[in-house]
């Protein structure tokens, strides 16, 4: 059960990477990376998951006293939040770059952007 989520996450990463590494269009690359990012986030969340427990929010259902035995690990959840936001930032930045690149050079093909090499 746990490894399904995790496995899906890994598969998503690999799929995303495959897309990112084989597509030449920068926009497609960005989309592929988003897929891979999602995979990473899924893996992150899956790691904190504990079978049969609930979300780490204390309310009527889970009192502070029982928390230790009732909630799942909250840390990955906190981490994933950060990871998502950062991923979003990077994606936005890449989009900007893609736009700028298109504006300046009129290309969106990464393999044509080779004026710096060797």
């Amino acid at each position, binding site marked *: 059960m*746990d*490894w399904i989520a*995790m*496995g899906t996450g*890994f598969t998503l*990463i*690999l799929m995303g*990477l*495959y897309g990112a*590494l*084989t597509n030449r269009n920068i926009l497609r690359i960005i989309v592929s990376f988003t897929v891979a990012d999602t995979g990473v986030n899924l893996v992150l969340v899956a*790691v904190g*998951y*504990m*079978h049969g427990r609930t*979300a*780490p*929010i*204390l*309310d009527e259902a889970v009192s*502070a006293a029982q*928390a*230790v035995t009732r*909630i799942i*690990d*909250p*840390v990955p*959840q*906190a*981490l994933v*939040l*950060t990871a*998502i*936001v*950062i991923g*979003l*930032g*990077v994606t*936005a*930045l890449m*989009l*900007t*770059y893609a*736009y*700028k690149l298109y*504006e300046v050079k009129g290309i969106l093909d990464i393999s044509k952007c080779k004026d710096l090499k060797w």
Partner: protein
Amino acid sequence: MIRRFAVFLLLLALGSIFVNLLMGYVPDSELNLTARYYAEHTAQDIGAANIVTAIVITYRGLDTLGEVTVLFLTATIIGMVLSQGQKHRALQRQLPPSGELLTTGSRLLVPLILLLGAYVFLNGHLTPGGGFQGGAIIASAALLLLLTDPLRRFSHRLISVVESVSGLVFVASGVLGILYAGGFLDSRILSTGTFGALFSAGVIPVIYSFVGLKVGAEFTSMLTNLAETEQS
């Protein structure tokens, strides 16, 4: 083709690393030391019902500060990049009018969305959700408006003021933490209040509110900036 094959092989190898990770993964049956501490102490130390929020804002507040900075940074970069080059160029093509449904629907929905957003970030320490989620929701209202009228302009000035003020408040509350509480970003500069109440958990709701505003502003700023590229 060779490239595809090479990539495939490489990913196969990477996959084997992942498989190794997966195989070696044994779910914990007990909370580990750190998680146990959070489970046991959050309520009384921080006073936040949502442990994740406590972690995000307080225990790992520095991460969050960084996170907020990431957004600020991204927005700034986008602003900087897109502001250079051609500005205020006249629209060169006629946009098709957005549908009646969309226009009317958004008029109805935007206030509701904003309200929901505010709710989500104000209650971040009690219920699922928080500043980031709330901010994203608020930004979705902006998105909706943009969809309705691609030429709609939001005040950059306002956005950046909101951004900056929110950021400054976050940093300032962090610094206040050094002065009046246990350390940088300690949320207990205000009293932790009554567990489960809106105004509890110290400065968390305040911070989360500003985070919400900030995130909303930043997303809006990014959206706006990107949307403005449509002009050309």
